[in-house]
């Protein structure tokens, strides 16, 4: 079985990368690809509660979209060092499947067959 890790590296709304990355996440499990999403670098801002993309013309809140990851059988993990660097508390985030450290991130990458960065 293929294992994909989708890295969400960019913040919401300034570019569509994170939102488009999530569309990829939605499609992989149905094709039999075990899928893990990692929010890291500015991607952690995609999980911050309370934002609303409609303020800049977008359809809605990207954090609410990401909170649906488990509905698509994808695991959503958050890179803790990226949170710390940006002064974001875990309590500010929408629901996810846990935080990982640098070492766990590298192990996760090494177990994957496909890596996609957005």
């Amino acid at each position: 079985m293929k294992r994909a890790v989708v890295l969400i590296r960019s913040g919401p709304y300034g570019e569509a990368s994170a939102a488009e990355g999530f569309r990829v996440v939605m499609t992989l499990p149905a094709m039999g690809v075990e899928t893990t999403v990692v929010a890291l670098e500015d991607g952690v801002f995609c999980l911050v509660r309370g934002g609303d993309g409609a303020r800049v013309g977008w359809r809605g809140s990207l954090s609410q979209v990401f909170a649906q990851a488990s509905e698509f059988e994808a695991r959503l993990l958050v890179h803790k060092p990226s949170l710390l660097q940006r002064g974001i508390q875990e309590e500010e985030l929408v629901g996810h499947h846990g935080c990982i450290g640098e070492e766990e991130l590298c192990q996760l990458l090494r177990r994957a067959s496909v890596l996609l960065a957005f």
Partner: protein
Amino acid sequence: METLFIFSKSPWARRDMETWLARVGEQDQVLLIQDAVLALRGSPGDISRELLSLRGRLWVLEADLAARGLQAGEAGVVDYPGAVGLVLEAERVLAL
């Protein structure tokens, strides 16, 4: 106002702020839009300190801040007409 510097990219992804904030003079002002507003939650290197030193001359676009669920902190908040006002007050605009 002399020059209005508009930053639009995150300081975590690009080096624009790292390179250009040092060129902001005492008669200049700074407007953060789009992903550059992420800088208000903390930035790499000296950027946070440099932004702080701009007190009174640092602005952030309200819609971009609200979209991302962030607070303005030390920055002044402008809406779109307010941003147009800054553009017109300035002698020139450099958007990076």
